[in-house]
């Protein structure tokens, strides 16, 4: 899959979708009509930074600083954002 996401892109949570922390599950979730996606660890860390304002590049830098030991973090982030975009969990601002 060729990446269509640019570091300058800005995303927000998809229309009719909601992102929230679930205490009972100890993870973030995305909710939509009659469905839910559970976001473990890094997926939650990426999506919680999506606010309709910061760019993908800023998120990458932020995560690199927060998790200095993580390898190949940029491609993980891009992969996650691709998936989220294709599923409609995110939309481009």
């Amino acid at each position, binding site marked *: 899959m060729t990446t269509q996401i640019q570091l300058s892109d800005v995303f927000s949570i998809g*229309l*009719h979708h*909601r992102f*929230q922390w*679930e205490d*009972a*599950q100890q993870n973030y*979730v995305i*909710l*939509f*009509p*009659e*469905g*839910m*996606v*559970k*976001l*473990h*660890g*890094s*997926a939650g860390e990426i999506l919680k930074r999506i606010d309709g304002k910061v760019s993908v590049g800023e998120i990458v830098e932020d995560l690199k600083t927060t998790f200095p030991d993580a390898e190949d973090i940029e491609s993980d982030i891009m992969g*996650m954002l691709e*998936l989220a975009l294709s*599923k409609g969990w995110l939309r481009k601002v």
Partner: protein
Amino acid sequence: MTQNTNVQVNNGVSTSATQTTPLWLLAEVTYRCPLHCAFCYNPTDYDKHTQNELTTAQWIQALRDARKLGAIQLGISGGEPLLRDDIEEIVIEAHKLGYYSNLITSGVGLTEQRIQALKAGGLDHIQLSMHDVTEDINNFITNTKTFQLKQKVATMIKAHGYPMVLNVVIHRFNIDHMKQILEMAEAIGADYIELANNQYYGWSLVNRSQLMPTREQLDRAEAVTNEFRATNPNVKALYVVPDYFNDRPKKCMNGWGEVFMIVTANGDVLPCHSARSLPNMQFPNVKDADLGWSWKDSPAFNKYRGTEWMKEPCRSCEDKEKDLGGCRCQSFLLTGDAEAADPVCTKSPHRHLIDQAIEDAKNPQLQAQAILFRNDKNSRRLASGELKSLIEQFHSLP
């Protein structure tokens, strides 16, 4: 669906392998309904539960208790939930508690005033049932004149910025209109359309021979849906395959006591809509049992959890974790043994019952029998045994 290390999706709802959490709370707030659909999955004896509905305060308490257990998707269903005048209050509480709330409605009773109040209260989504593109079939199968109203309600839902989610139960009378139904969904601006092939429980089981399509009709409908999907990516079309025409059973409710908790109009707590049709079961009720105990510890919720209860051919089957032996209610209704393999399975010694039902549905005489519509009078007639001849081939009715 999606499966990688970071994201788990399973039939739209995640599951935890170790300890189960009721992610879905389905609140069947009333069994009263202005429609009389021939395929309704509600219990055929629903009439006895129309006088003892939970109060608003009892619903709010149930919502709070279920949320503590982890429930996050709330379905407000029925009957027609809008026949209660406290849905707005229930929605406000659901929103405060952090539920994603789904109103599952026929559209009857959804006025401009109510939709505004529901929106302001934080309702997330409205699922509207539609029946056909023709007024005749819509009015026939629901036994009401509701075609025009549904068109208006669809427009109203869209105008209020809600995702447009249509649910169409598919049966012999509308299956050949699949192309037109999908085109209607696109014209309305639907985001999702659920093409729910009829399953045979409740009223739908009583009317099985009249409602069941042929395999050829199903194949055509599926091909039409796939063609539509390829050319209309904006409308997500979900085609639910009917289990009678499969070789292996469905993982019913995603597993008994795994993710779904149903609270009925009178407060019974169930792992599936039809569970009260099973013999020798005592289901807890929110009026006198703690919801956490009901979910985790009640004998009813533990009875068919996992695979321990199974006997052959399920016990040694390589697919037992995949389908958990199918549907307990279907097994009991058709074979008389709730622990038998779901008769849909070709490994079941009872598969001939399903094949016979498929054959019966081709029989013009059986097809032409009068449909028994879902209404209070027919519910009382079924419960009193007056219509015994219609249901004597089944071991019980939900």
